[in-house]
């Protein structure tokens, strides 16, 4: 059974005239690492909200179709109940830290769940360690940089040990190097703990190589769905205005020039390997 399944999903915000999600059907298997991309305003954040019940419970509007997450129908399960199974990291880190210290924020969800003190302590320590912010534990949110806030927000979601983690542009405040570190962390969580990851990202250059699957949305519709190589090498994606990784672009240019590499490279390292291979042949 898929861990996330949407069937003919439509959603229109109460205040809007246009549907923000139009006829989206998809299914994500347990343990998959999925990249969700698309131009600004195409409905990525809206789709994320459908995965944890904020839509239709928090944001009202016209909701049609079905969404099932971890065996729960989203239309019938409020977000606070779903939060044990699905964690959502929001775009703006500042507005998801409510407490006066990082440690207290990471504990917030666990306290709400009514876990015993020792269990809260164990999970808080784990989440702080895995995100590498142990030394920030007593800082107040306003004493943190944007990137540190982002890590604190991620730690507070991971501590709840959800089966699915949805991250809405979690690297918007990070420099490329910290972004890479974060992707590495997500990859480890995905591989070692089997957590399903849905990552919304614009910077495909940095993360195309870790995803198993890429979904591209355009104007509320799911336009492309396939392996990173399939989706990113196609003609369609460039027409949508999504930045294709430079390694792929180079692959295409080489192809036009008559040099065919074995397969499309998803990162600079992979590209280097393939070129080396080609030269050695």
């Amino acid at each position, binding site marked *: 059974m898929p861990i996330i399944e949407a069937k003919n999903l439509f959603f229109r915000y109460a205040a809007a005239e246009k549907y923000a999600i139009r006829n989206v059907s998809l299914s994500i298997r347990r343990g998959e690492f999925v990249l969700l991309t698309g131009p600004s305003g195409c409905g990525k954040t809206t789709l994320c909200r459908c995965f944890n019940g*904020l839509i239709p419970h928090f944001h009202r509007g016209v909701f049609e179709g079905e969404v099932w997450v971890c065996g729960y129908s989203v239309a019938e399960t409020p977000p*606070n109940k779903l939060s044990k199974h699905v964690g959502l990291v929001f775009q703006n880190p500042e507005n998801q830290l409510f407490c006066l210290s990082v440690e207290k924020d990471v504990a917030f969800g666990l306290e709400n769940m009514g876990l015993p003190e020792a269990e809260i302590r164990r999970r808080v320590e784990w989440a702080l360690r895995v995100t590498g912010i142990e030394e920030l534990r007593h800082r107040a949110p306003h004493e943190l940089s944007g990137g540190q806030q982002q890590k604190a927000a991620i730690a507070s979601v991971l501590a709840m040990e959800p089966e699915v983690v949805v991250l809405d542009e979690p690297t918007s405040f990070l420099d490329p190097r910290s972004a890479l570190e974060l992707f590495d962390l997500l990859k480890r969580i995905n591989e070692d703990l089997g957590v399903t990851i849905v990552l919304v990202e614009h910077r495909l250059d940095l993360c195309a190589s870790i995803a198993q699957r890429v979904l591209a949305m355009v104007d509320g519709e799911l336009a492309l769905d396939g392996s990173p190589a399939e989706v990113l090498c196609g003609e369609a994606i460039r027409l949508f205005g999504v930045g294709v990784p430079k390694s792929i672009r180079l692959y295409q240019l080489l192809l036009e020039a008559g040099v065919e590499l074995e397969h499309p490279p998803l990162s600079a390292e992979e590209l280097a390997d393939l070129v080396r291979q080609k030269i050695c042949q």
Partner: protein
Amino acid sequence: MSLSFLEGLQFRRMDSPIHRLDPRAKFVIALSILGYAMLFTEVIPLIVGFAILLPLVFAAKVFRMWVRTIKGVLVLAILIFAINWLVTPDLAMAVGLALRFVLLVAAFSLFFLTTSPDDLGLALEQSGVPYELTFAFTTAIRFVPVLCREAQTIVDAQRSRGLELERGGLLKRIRNYLPILVPLVVGAIRRSVDLAEAMESRAWGVSEKRTSLYRLKMRGRDYLAILLSAAFFLLAMYVKLLSNQPLLPWLL
């Protein structure tokens, strides 16, 4: 417009024997001084009150900030003095009432300077105040610096567009602040929607019984502080009763 005066609201994390006391014990200390100040309007016992408070302030290493708070209410103290002096021509009484007010502020200032809002929230929670209220309190404090920064940004932005704040009569000046207030309030409302969304996503209200990472525990020294405060207050009451007799006329 500078918003630096709001910095006084921000608790600074520090360590001292006073900081380490349980907030409830510290509150009892402040209360005992409040009770003490209420007993007397004479200058000498009020000065004794300051003399008792001062070592605590030094022990807490917050003397400079403490003085700053007191300076902040000095105008109010002078006002109290002036009004009382006008109403009753008793000079000593007017001085006493002003001093009493300053002593009250001084005692509670020590409390707030040495108690983190987090601990205060926890103390409230453990005293049976509903979590929703204590959460609202700590979250409000968490966003004070954020709103200050936002206000400063808006002030700068509006100024660069030619807004002059310190111009015109009183009414005009109040109107000048509208272009700052409106975006600030709109921003705060938008932020509160985001916050509510994030809280929902972190299991807010999912369990009947909420647990907590920290628990405040009263220790020996906290009980001792409460005991001493109570003893101090009772002693003061005793002296007060005696002082009504001509036995201790120097207190009058």
